[in-house]
């Protein structure tokens, strides 16, 4: 890379050398951060994949049951049955710091802990298929909430990894070689200046000797 406009002075040289040390240290740290993030991300994303497959299967099964339930009941009865839910889900969000990425941790609270106490209707006017459907859906709910947590973490970590990787690459391929180039340029220039002064002095000495002794 062509060196662009650096002052070949000792002060500039010291400054650049310091900058190089910082850049190399930063590069090492960021590289470590990237590697660790990547390791954790891969674990998380595998979990994410498994959970997603499980949840999608569960929802599909629940949907089938709901279609059945709907077939054997009138729409009005069905919607009225589900109009006033008994169960209530609230989520407490805290955060966990993983390599400077704040990932959310969901703490789930349900109003009725009893699994059999979620049906918000009397059993007289609804079909048994609806009970099945709701039960199959409530079975996937914990996994769905876990999935939300894991998938969000994956998204956040993915963008952090992307950012870190860019920084590592910028340092490795631009900043560090650039600074090294500049340092080299300045050292060369300073050496050249020194040699030039040396030859000039020698030449002057020769001239003075010639004048004094007539060599």
């Amino acid at each position, binding site marked *: 890379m062509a060196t662009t406009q650096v002052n070949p002075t000792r002060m500039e040289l010291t400054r650049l050398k310091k900058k190089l040390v910082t850049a190399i240290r930063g590069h090492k740290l960021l590289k470590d951060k990237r590697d660790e993030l990547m390791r954790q991300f891969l674990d998380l994303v595998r979990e994410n994949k498994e959970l997603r497959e499980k*949840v999608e299967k569960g929802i*599909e099964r629940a949907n089938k049951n709901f*279609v059945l339930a709907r077939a054997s009941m009138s729409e009005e009865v069905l919607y009225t049955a589900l109009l006033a*839910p008994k*169960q209530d*889900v609230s989520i407490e969000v805290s955060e966990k710091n993983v390599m400077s990425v704040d990932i959310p941790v969901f703490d789930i609270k349900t109003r009725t802990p009893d699994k059999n106490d979620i049906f918000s209707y009397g059993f007289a006017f609804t079909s048994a298929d609806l009970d099945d459907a709701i039960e199959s859906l409530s079975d996937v709910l914990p996994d769905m*909430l876990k999935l939300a*947590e894991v998938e969000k973490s*994956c998204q956040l970590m993915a963008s952090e*990894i992307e950012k870190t990787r860019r920084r590592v690459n910028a340092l490795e391929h631009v900043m560090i070689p650039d600074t090294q180039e500049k340092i080299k340029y300045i050292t060369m220039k300073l050496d050249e200046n020194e040699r030039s002064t040396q030859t000039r002095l020698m030449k002057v000495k020769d001239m003075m000797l010639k004048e004094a002794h007539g060599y």
Partner: protein
Amino acid sequence: MYRAAVIGDRDSIYGFAALGLDVNIIEHGEDPAPVFKRLCEGEYAVIYVTEALASELAPKIEHYQEQKTPAIILIPGVTGNTGEGINAVKKSVEKAVGSDIIFNT
């Protein structure tokens, strides 16, 4: 205290009401954007979006991806699984690693 919400067409999501999630039904042809915006700005930690609706809301969903809450999660609707949800996971792997190393096996 946060809550969880579901947004989608009636047939895909009405069952979630029984579980205590907030159900937001988008009728066919209705614009989901204002409802979605209200949910995102409200006290919701998780918003489940049906895959069919997600394609309409794609740019908005992307916008919320970098924020801590809400977590926007795609779920298959009653019309079947379009693979959008797993695609989103693939995309984040591609973003982080550079190429898909988890799902191509």
